């Protein structure tokens, strides 16, 4: 691998991050935090510029370099993103700052801060910006507007937004990335506008819009969406579903093909599983409380949607829900949103493919000579893709197991360890037990914060991009040109 070329691009990414850090300084001055913010931004910029200047300008990105750029680039970005939490003195520990930054960029939305309203506005905005940049992918953004990444753009794109390859909107990957980011920005602006018309001020509207479209979950209120009106919650629910949908479909719909959503098989699964989960949780709540009002329906639908789309906003403490409803939430945490969305998790498309494959295997038991084809949207799923999905399932389960084990070793109870590691990998945010929606992640130790940070990164980059970094062969021909 050509590490020098990789570092060149990472230098550019750090300068980007430094630029993004300038935005919160608008509020920093009034909060007496101007100096720390400028220091964080400048420090990152200088480091980035150094890497940029000291490495060759001619870059050629092969698949290996592409994966390394995304893997190492994300590590560099989340570390740089942690600096503001440290220098402004908001985060109690370095591990806590890293956790908050990773949680932001991976659109998890898990926080170490018990009282959100106590945080400076500059920090609140930075948390939302990190969500927004991480949602559609900061490197995809680079591919979209930085011509220098044009060469290996496809590799970068797929390493950061993996999943099952879907149709490109345009023959060129940079144009595709531009369209997706354009749709993303447009939807964010639409939601911010709606929030303004409802019950938010400009600051809250912008923050929540960025958080929602990124399926993040950071709020400017401790009570999260519970602090806002019922109408706001309904609007948020709608946009969470939108954010959890493949953005390629949104582009098609916006360009006039209104049937694009319904025609997509994965979208039908996604909406179908959402509706089933709504109904089951609503019934579970109704039975356990003996009440069936509109408020209960909203509570069930909002929180199910928040978990299914991997956003992680909350309007109620679902830690108090009956166990049946909580198990459904755990299932949704695992499954997550659609491929090609800003959401995380195992993804609807993979769940569907695995289930269809299982049905095919059962068919083969009944008919040993049957030629079974797993299909997606009327097309056969190629064996390589199927194997990739099955390996991904294994990785998901094993990683979740290891994460749970590590958190349990640190003294967390079973429900907390199980749900926290799952909520981190699937970029949900709140889990159950000690890390439920009424609580926060601040009480965990530094080791737990780092374990969860790693889980969040693995989940966001869908494992392979990070895991290849620990394989020696990735680093073969160090510094060479081959």
């Amino acid at each position: 691998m050509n590490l020098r070329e990789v570092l060149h691009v990472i230098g550019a990414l750090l300068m980007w991050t430094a630029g993004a850090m300038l935005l919160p300084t608008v509020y920093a001055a009034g909060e007496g935090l101007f100096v720390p913010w400028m220091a964080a931004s400048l420090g990152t910029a200088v480091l980035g510029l150094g890497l940029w200047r000291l490495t060759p300008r001619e870059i050629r990105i092969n698949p290996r370099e592409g994966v390394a750029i995304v893997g190492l680039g994300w590590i560099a970005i989340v570390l740089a993103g942690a600096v503001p939490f440290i220098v402004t003195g908001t985060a109690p520990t370095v591990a806590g700052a890293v956790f908050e930054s990773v949680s932001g960029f991976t659109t998890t939305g898990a926080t170490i801060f018990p009282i959100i309203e106590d945080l400076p506005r500059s920090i609140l905005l930075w948390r939302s910006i990190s969500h927004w940049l991480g949602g559609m992918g900061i490197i995809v953004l680079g591919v979209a507007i930085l011509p220098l990444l044009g060469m290996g753009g496809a590799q970068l794109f797929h390493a950061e937004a993996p999943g099952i390859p879907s149709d490109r909107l345009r023959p060129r990957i940079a144009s595709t990335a531009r369209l997706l980011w354009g749709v993303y920005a447009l939807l964010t602006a639409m939601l911010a506008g709606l929030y303004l018309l409802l019950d938010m001020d400009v600051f809250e509207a912008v923050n929540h819009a960025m958080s929602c479209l990124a399926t993040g979950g950071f709020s400017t209120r401790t009570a999260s969406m519970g602090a806002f009106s019922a109408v706001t919650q309904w609007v948020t629910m709608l946009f969470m579903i939108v954010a959890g949908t493949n953005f390629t479909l949104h582009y098609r719909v916006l360009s006039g093909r209104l049937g694009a959503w319904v025609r997509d098989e994965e979208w039908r699964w996604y909406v179908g599983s959402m509706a089933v989960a709504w109904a089951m949780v609503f019934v579970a709540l109704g039975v356990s409380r003996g009440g069936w009002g509109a408020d209960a329906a909203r509570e069930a639908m909002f929180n199910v949607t928040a978990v299914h789309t991997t956003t992680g906003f909350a309007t109620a403490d679902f830690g108090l829900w009956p166990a049946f409803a909580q198990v459904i939430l755990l299932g949704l945490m695992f499954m997550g949103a659609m491929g090609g969305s800003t959401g995380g998790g195992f993804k609807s498309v993979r769940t569907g493919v695995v289930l269809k494959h299982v049905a095919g295997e059962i068919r083969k038991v009944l008919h040993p000579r049957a030629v079974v084809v797993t299909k997606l949207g009327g097309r056969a799923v190629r064996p390589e893709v199927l194997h990739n999905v099955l390996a991904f399932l294994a990785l998901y389960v094993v990683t979740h197991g290891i994460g749970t084990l590590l958190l349990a070793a640190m003294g967390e109870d079973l429900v907390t360890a199980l749900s926290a590691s799952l909520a981190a990998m699937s970029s949900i945010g709140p889990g159950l037990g000690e890390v439920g929606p009424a609580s926060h992640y601040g009480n965990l130790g530094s080791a737990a914060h780092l374990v969860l940070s790693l889980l969040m990164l693995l989940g966001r980059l869908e494992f392979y991009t990070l895991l290849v970094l620990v394989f020696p062969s990735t680093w073969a021909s160090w510094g060479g040109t081959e």
Partner: protein
Amino acid sequence: MHVVVVGAGEVGYHVADRLVGLQHDVVVVDVEPRRLEYVANHLDVAVVEGSGTSMATLEEAGIQKAALLLAVTNVDEVNLVTCMSAREVEALTTVARVSNPTFYRDARNLRPAAFGVDVLINPERELALETVRLLKTTAATDVAVFAGGAVQLLGLMVAPGAPVAGRRLVDLAAEHGDRPILTVAVERDGATIVPRGDTEIRVGDHLFVATKAGEVATALELVGYQPATVRRVMVTGGSTEAYYLSHLLQQHRVQTTLLIEDRQRAQDLAEELDKVLVLHGDATDVELLELEGVGGADGFVALTEHDEINILSSLVAKRAGARQVITLVNKRDYIPLARHIGLDAAVSPRLSAANAILRHVRRGSVTRVATFEGSDAEAIAFTVSPASPIAGKSLAEAGIPAGAIVAAIVRGTEVVVPRGHDRIEVGDSVVVFTLPEAAQAVSEYFPA
């Protein structure tokens, strides 16, 4: 009429043969000299060596004076380009054989006019449609439909214990006179006759019966079969015919199992056919057929490319207890054999293609023609013009020639399976069943 046939394969040969029989001048074009030699030795036709896509070759074959161009090679694209080459020729009807399902999947794919094609024929799909009709009528050996399905001409074997066995037609008519069922032909000991009132029906006779769509069940019962619905069908072979049939069965919501020997073809068709269970295996693998429940199947259709495998697997299926067995047979000589060893019905791509083409060849008052496997008889639908000598007469007065019989009269939406006193009026559509010796005389009764 001068006809140019491009393609001397199975379909081309057979169509040329039928056209010669209809007194047309036929020139056969093919790139393969050996095939041409065979055609020239067996049929009274002229041959031209060359590609139908070359205008020079077509001119050599007399395209300028031809009224009909039949492009029936087994390559769809060659057929289309052949018709395209000849699109400038005046007063020429062009027929292209196009089989690839991809062309038909989307209306935007194949616009015949753009290729200068007047008529598209798809013998493989015709065969699949015919097979579906056979499956629907459970016991029929042949099914030909007229007037959009309102008139059905069925070939039926008289089963042991059938109510009609050992009875004379005149007695049956007295008993079932109110039923619109007419026996138009009896095939016995290899000869086809148009029966008379005193003809006695025996077990094992092959009857051709004209009836209305609604009376098919009655006709089946009279020859000893119980009507039944088709729920589960097993198809063998990876042919285009097998694809079309499985596709149609899937549309009819029939539970379908498709057995294909070629691994890759099995994979491809499994991807195409959503609701069909595709198996990879040998069509003569008795254990596999039994494991997959061929015994309980309502239908078994053998559609591989090899007659021998089809006949063998059909026998296996019949022995295992499949209710109805339909066998694809290419070789003409095998057809009587297949019937003799107890197979229910035979279909042939050659015949399907010929039927599809001949329907468009006969002009004038002819609207539709059906031919039957293993017999030279034909059923022809005519439109009665004012010039017809029998217009306005009853059948008894008309004096239909011996060897022919009027099977049905269609007047608007009304269908009459006629008796002697029924009249033929101008504008009627008349279905006539005729033996070859009477064909010429019949056509004189129905001038354009």
